[in-house]
């Protein structure tokens, strides 16, 4: 199995500010994934982060709103920029290892 450390675990933010979420994995992996889970809903992929290249964003998500960094094979960050109450969600990072995707514990974000 794999260990994924994600922080912060939760935060309450004011609208218009930005929050950076960090994800550290204990194995070197090519791809890391960032998902959003709105309250009581399923997971939606935001983007795929490949080390050494620009992240690939899914339809409905843009780099200006959700910039991602992937400086090495064990670390990634997701920033939620210029937040509004609609950004209140759980954000999860994920990575694949041996045909299985493992997930961090998630960041619960509340925007006031």
């Amino acid at each position, binding site marked *: 199995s794999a260990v994924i450390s994600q922080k912060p675990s939760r935060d309450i933010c004011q609208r218009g500010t930005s929050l950076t979420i960090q994800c550290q994995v204990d194995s070197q992996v090519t791809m890391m994934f960032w998902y959003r889970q709105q309250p009581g809903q399923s997971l939606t*992929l935001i983007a795929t982060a490949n080390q050494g290249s620009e992240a690939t964003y899914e339809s409905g998500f843009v780099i200006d709103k959700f910039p991602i960094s992937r400086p090495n094979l064990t670390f990634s960050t997701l920033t939620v920029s210029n937040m509004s109450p609609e950004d209140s969600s759980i954000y999860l990072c994920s990575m694949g290892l041996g*045909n299985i995707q493992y997930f961090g514990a998630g960041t619960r974000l509340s925007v006031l």
Partner: protein
Amino acid sequence: AQTVTQSQPEMSVQEAETVTLSCTYDTSESNYYLFWYKQPPSRQMILVIRQEAYKQQNATENRFSVNFQKAAKSFSLKISDSQLGDTAMYFCAFRIGSSNTGKLIFGQGTTLQVKP
């Protein structure tokens, strides 16, 4: 487009009983993986079981087993001898190809309540 459908938003079962969660998917691909993930209130996503599409034999992990019907594109999860710790939201997920670099597509989830 690939889709995953879980038609049961909520289910409940008595402790020690058996429950089946349904999942259907749609794809034109022949090489894919199917997964069931569990998300307890702590919200840590935990892999319950996985199935390779090319394998006809249904996967089993202790009390958890699947009924994989490839022609019908159905992938149900059976939980035997339900325990209170099984209370969680369960997500069916799908991934094209055998590489772990592929994205997962999730169903809407089924909230399972195990009652004492």
